[in-house]
């Protein structure tokens, strides 16, 4: 959460050029898919855009505006996908996404937010350390007899809530891939929710608690590397934990890798080969939390020199996320015909789930996913591959009428190395 002075400065720097609503203009390939921001594309009113939210943030700060019903709609239907943020940074030095996140925090502080579904998640995390309210004893239920985590290993597999409780087959796939890659891994004896939804919905107090717990547990495990196949957990451990602890990613007592980074590294070093054909025509959907939001976090205490020089600040401009490893993997699998969609990498359209939207606004989330499916259909593929269990679920539901299948990349990798 930005401090008030910095929050105001960032919001004031917006010049309302509307660039935040578009993919990088040089990359636009058709009028049909020429938009970037889901809320802007669906609702059109300027409030439903980054510049609209930045302007209303100022008005709210100045006491000229309260959290009206439509401001609540715009603020909480934003998927926090970050497209606006890196687009703006082409031309200006503005932390667009941090202003929107801070506006959410202010809304929570004033008792106006978050949405009831988000509050329920926080209550579940408090009670049972996962967002679903499931029995914490069931966290390791995904483990099958043929998967043998080590008691002690350099690699720690952070599973995350969705794969622990809702998508056990993806956790199993991840574990089996690690085993086949000859990478012994351990699990946390008491993994808690990553807290991704808590951070996204401005519930910082419980978010800090889970961060402190998980960081201490990772430290105690002695692991040198944390690997996850959950894009949301990846971003949370890489970005949100250091951020709330006022540190940089590099200062954390662990390094975090997405499974695709790890496997792509092995492929490059010749230590792993995909030995089975997977005949399939696929496209790849970049999860926001792995791509433009997956850049390392750099802690910075605001310090300016005139006219607007942020002294010593390292900017996150969207290029340092995880874009290539999943593509390298797909290209390395025999039989895969890989075709890109129009909006890819830092220009990718959000699946619609992020920012707590999937839980609180399922209809809008489904509309957003439907837009992505429409884009995928223009490529003529039979399947979409992604790296996030929530992307898979939402896109999968939206894709049902089209007949397009949606896979997590771990499922494809496992088929290729069996």
């Amino acid at each position: 959460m930005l401090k008030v002075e910095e929050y105001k400065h960032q919001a004031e720097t917006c010049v309302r050029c509307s660039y935040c609503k578009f993919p990088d203009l040089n990359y636009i390939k058709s009028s049909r898919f020429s938009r970037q921001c889901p809320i802007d594309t669906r609702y059109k009113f300027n409030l439903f855009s980054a510049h609209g939210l930045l302007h209303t943030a100022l008005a709210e700060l100045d006491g000229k505006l309260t959290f009206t019903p439509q401001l609540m709609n715009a603020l909480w239907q934003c998927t926090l996908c970050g497209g606006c943020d890196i687009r703006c940074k082409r031309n200006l030095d503005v932390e667009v996404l941090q202003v929107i996140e801070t506006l959410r925090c202010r809304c929570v502080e004033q008792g106006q937010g978050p949405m009831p579904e988000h509050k329920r998640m926080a209550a579940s995390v408090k009670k049972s350390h996962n967002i679903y309210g499931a029995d914490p004893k069931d966290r390791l239920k995904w483990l099958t007899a043929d998967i043998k985590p080590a008691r002690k290993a350099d690699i720690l597999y952070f599973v995350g809530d969705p794969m622990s409780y809702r998508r056990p087959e993806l956790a199993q796939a991840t574990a089996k891939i690690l085993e086949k890659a000859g990478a012994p891994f351990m699990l946390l004896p008491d993994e808690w929710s990553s807290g991704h939804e808590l951070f996204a919905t401005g519930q910082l107090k419980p978010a800090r608690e889970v961060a402190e717990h998980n960081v201490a547990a990772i430290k105690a495990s002695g692991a040198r590397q944390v690997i996850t196949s959950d894009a949301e957990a990846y971003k949370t451990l890489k970005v949100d934990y250091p951020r709330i602890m006022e540190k940089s990613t590099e200062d954390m007592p662990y390094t975090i890798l997405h499974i695709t980074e790890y496997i792509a590294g092995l492929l490059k070093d010749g230590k792993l080969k995909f030995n089975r054909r997977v005949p399939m025509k696929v496209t790849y959907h970049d999860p926001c939390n792995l791509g433009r939001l997956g850049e390392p976090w750099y802690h910075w205490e605001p310090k300016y020199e005139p006219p607007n020089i942020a002294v010593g600040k390292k900017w996150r401009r969207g290029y340092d996320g995880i874009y290539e490893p999943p593509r390298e993997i797909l290209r390395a699998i025999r039989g895969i015909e890989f075709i890109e969609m129009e909006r890819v990498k830092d220009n990718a359209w959000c699946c619609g789930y992020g920012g707590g939207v999937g839980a609180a606004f399922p209809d809008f989330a489904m509309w957003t996913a439907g837009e992505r499916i429409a884009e995928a259909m223009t490529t003529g593929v039979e399947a979409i591959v992604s790296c996030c269990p929530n992307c898979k679920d939402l896109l999968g539901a939206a894709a049902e009428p089209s007949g397009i299948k949606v896979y997590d990349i771990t499922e494809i990798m496992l088929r290729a190395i069996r």
Partner: protein
Amino acid sequence: MSIPKEAYQTLQSIVGAEWVSDDPAICEADRYCSLSDPTDEKRRPGCSIEPATTAEVQAIVKLANRYKIPFVVTSTFYGAGTYCRKDDSILIDLKRMNQLEIDKDNMYAIVGPGVPFAALQADLLKMGLFTFVPGCGGQSSVVANTVNMGDAPLGWRHGLGYQRLLAVEWVLPDGDILKMGSQSMSDDYFWGEGPGPDLRGLLRGCAGHQSRMGIITRIGVKVFPFVSEALQPEGWAYHTFMNLPPNRFKWYNIRFPSRKEAIDAIYELGRCEIALVVMTVPPIFRGVARSRGVGCGGFWEYWKEASGKLNRKQEDLRVLLYGIGSDKRLEYEEKVLLDIVKEYDGSAREAPCRDETNFMAADAICANVVGGRFASEVSYESISQAVTYARVVDKICDEHRPPILQEYNTTDWVCPYELGYIAKMECLRMAAVEDNYALQEWKKEVEAACAEKGAYALVPDNKVFGPVWGNYPEKEDAIRAAFDPNHISNPE
């Protein structure tokens, strides 16, 4: 006060409840758009409404007349003055009117006001056609920009935007619909000219009509043939560009000993009818281009070093050659260009064959990286007027409160269009965000001084004034009054 309840309910019935709102946050977000003058008091609209059809626009405007409620129109919201100056206005946002049809064979497009240039350009490029993205950016509205001046560096060869305006569908301030050009005879947008006087001149001009003459709901716009090869984008968001086919395009950066030689060379380029883009390059533009991805701090790091080495007399020119129709044409243009450069003592250096800011992005907004805000004085006239005006503005600037950036060669940008027949002079001044108000006050001082000296000037509300403009402002007011008897179409 607010919009009368009965009127609001009627608005809901016109567009559907989902597309009109008097929620304070929605209205607050529509309070002002980009480039609006911070010293001008901007009012929160009484409601914002998003019509989808011309019939809906017409019904809204008729209702506004019935209740005498002021209305202001906007679309892609990157505008130059379309914000509410009166309490409880209706803000009509045309983003939903995004109809786009391209007639490839006859090389024109029919566009609604919600279509941004980048969307049109993307579809055109796939068909081997193209249009000119204006300097303000590909996110701006095709309709709004075309019925305005339509300023784009690509206008050197094919003309400014207003030259491309064909048939027009226009909801007048009283709610009547006027169809111009071939629209007046049939549902056809191919011809700009039609029976009777051509009223497009009422819309066009340097600052356009600023939504004070009603609402343009659809236009036909001329497009041009282009290379069939796809332009390949490259780079990450903070610095992207499109690779141009090297057999058909060449960029040259040319340095002349002084502005005089550069201007003479521009005239010669026009006489020889070559090149797609010709523009002078103020040193600050180079600084901005080099600070891609490194922000304000990176700009100043570059600038502190570069400004000390500047030769203030020299003038840089940037020229894009385009082999229209064939590779041979490119070879010919290159020979002619290099001859001209030699004749006027310039030195030419070929630049990478790629485009960052002309075909799609054209993001003039990047100039804000210098400090956060900029203000600019703009004139459109002949090249000689641009040069003279630049001198006047520079002198006046020296006599007034200095802008934050002083230490560079020329502060003014001369951009010739239409093979040198017309030119823009834009004088940019930068400031920090917190100095924006002072910057605009300074701008007004400069404008007033320009007007006193008989130079071109635009006052707030984008009205031209000054002795050189005779009685134009009065006549313009009279025309507006005739079209808008209730004085409700974006009133001052």
